[in-house]
């Protein structure tokens, strides 16, 4: 074969691959797209993969999921980059609703935060309350021999995520100022998601705050050796909600022409359906020995178990409702 023939062959092959790839690409995107910005924990645990597969199997919708942390998810939604947000920071959610960006909030699941750390527990926080544990960690950090900055014993998300804002409120409750603490030599922050932060804490032999779901997933998969050291308490409650982005928010032209409100609401109805709630509660039970998340919808209706449901209401309800009437846009049956 002559050189030019080879060249022609290669060129032809390359063209076929590119054209085929483009066709596949366009076929794939011929579905309607629903942009979801989510907290990293739902994604890092693999739960959203399961939900995505289940939902896409029965709907002609392509879920476009970006896992970014609550603060960024809310930001993206305000920018018109998302149709729906899955988040876990009630105070941030309230501001989002009040700003008119989000509507039709539903609480979908809950679990607990925990402080995880090395098994030898140098700061001796085992079995303590969160406030006591944080106090011990500060004491240990201030008194440990290495003050050069090479040893860091606390790893913070530092990314305005739901976990990060929970961490800040726990520090405040323990009597500390998060901003001041973050300048201490023993204090590190990653600016990354829960999974990456757990990995950093594990490698450094440091403590961090994590939702129990992501922690169990990483621990059971053998990615980290950190152990969960403190017990469940009201202050550590973690509540996940879904909100549709208001159709009045102007969509970012670079992503999509209009907020896909209809599919967003359809997805919310899917999330709170009995079968999806069961899927959420059972997710990972076999693999990890316990549920990573507990579906909240039926439990809130039944107001059982207590005191858990009272805690959820105290923490994540606004004016006695998961979504006061002024933040609703149709779909009243969601709240009956």
């Amino acid at each position, binding site marked *: 074969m002559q050189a030019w023939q080879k060249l022609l062959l290669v060129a032809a092959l390359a063209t076929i691959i590119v054209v085929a790839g483009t066709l596949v690409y366009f076929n794939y995107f011929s579905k309607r797209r629903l942009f979801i910005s989510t907290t990293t924990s739902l994604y890092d645990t693999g739960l959203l993969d399961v939900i995505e597969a289940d939902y896409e199997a029965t709907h002609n919708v392509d879920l476009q999921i970006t896992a*970014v942390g609550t603060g960024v998810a809310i930001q993206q939604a305000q*920018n018109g980059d998302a149709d729906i947000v899955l988040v876990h920071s009630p105070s941030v959610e309230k501001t989002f609703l009040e700003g008119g960006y989000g509507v039709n909030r539903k609480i979908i699941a809950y679990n607990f935060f925990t402080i995880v750390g090395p098994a030898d527990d140098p700061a001796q926080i085992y079995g303590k309350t969160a406030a006591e544990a944080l106090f011990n960690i500060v004491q240990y950090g201030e008194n440990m021999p290495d003050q050069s900055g*090479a040893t860091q014993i606390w790893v913070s998300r530092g990314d305005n995520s739901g976990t990060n804002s929970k961490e800040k409120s726990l520090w405040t409750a323990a009597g500390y100022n998060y901003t001041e603490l*973050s300048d201490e*030599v*023993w204090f*590190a922050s990653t600016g*990354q998601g829960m999974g990456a932060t757990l990995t950093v804490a594990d490698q450094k032999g440091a403590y961090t705050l994590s939702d129990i779901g992501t922690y169990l997933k990483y621990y059971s998969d053998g990615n980290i050796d950190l152990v969960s050291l403190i017990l469940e308490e009201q202050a550590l409650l973690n509540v996940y909600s879904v909100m549709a982005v208001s159709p009045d928010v102007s969509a*970012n032209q670079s992503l999509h022409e209009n907020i896909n409100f209809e599919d967003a609401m359809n997805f919310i109805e899917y999330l709170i359906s009995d079968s999806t709630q069961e899927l959420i509660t059972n997710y990972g039970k076999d693999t990890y020995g316990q549920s990573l998340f507990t579906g909240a919808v039926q439990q809130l209706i039944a107001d059982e178990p207590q005191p858990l449901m009272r805690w959820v209401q105290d923490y994540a309800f606004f004016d006695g409702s998961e979504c006061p009437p002024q933040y609703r846009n149709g779909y009243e049956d969601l709240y009956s």
Partner: protein
Amino acid sequence: MADILADTAEALQLIITGDPEILGIVSRSLLFSGTAVILAILWGTPLAMLIAMNEFRGKTLIKTFLNTLIGLPTVVLGLILFLIFSKGGPLGFLGLLYTPAAIMLGQAVLITPILVSIGVSAIESVDPEIMSLSRTLGASESQAQVAVLKEAASGIVLSDLASFNRAIGELGVVLLVGGNIGGGGNRTDVITTAISRNVQISEFGLAIALGILLVLILFTINMIVAVLRKANYIVELAKPPFSRFKRNRETKQ
């Protein structure tokens, strides 16, 4: 929506007022990548000399391999280094992961192919006559090698600067083995990781400021390269060929 004008104005203000956060990030970038280049020079330059000054089987293979490695995605190298440095990995006992040392080492490994590859070309482009001539003029083997190295100096400096460019602008290695660690201890957040992070949390002003500074750094380096090339060209024209060796010989006598 991000307001580009307002964010850019904020960025310029941050730069002009010498925001300490930005200064810290930029100086870490310069320090880490600078050290990485020095490390890479330590093992890269001898390697380049070894490859360029000897004829052996598989030389073309090695050179092709090096050229391939130049294009290695940084995130792939980041992954490999992560596995090596992490607790269960072969070098895990050193406790290097997520430390400044890991970044410097990682970037040094990253730029070694580019440093060696350009270095080899520079040395090979030196007239082979110089080697034999300096020998005939009484130079020992190592002196002759130094003579060749001197002739190739501008090319070698070029390879060092290109390596620095590659190091300071990469994200994959620095994020995966550095971890973008902020806080009060030893920090590993550098320009590229800080840009990525600040875009994510919508701090566009800070991100733009860092972007401007990174481009300025790269521009400065490229200016230095350009000036060096030009200056070297003039020097080459100005000096009579091989004058240095003759002078050496004269002083010896």
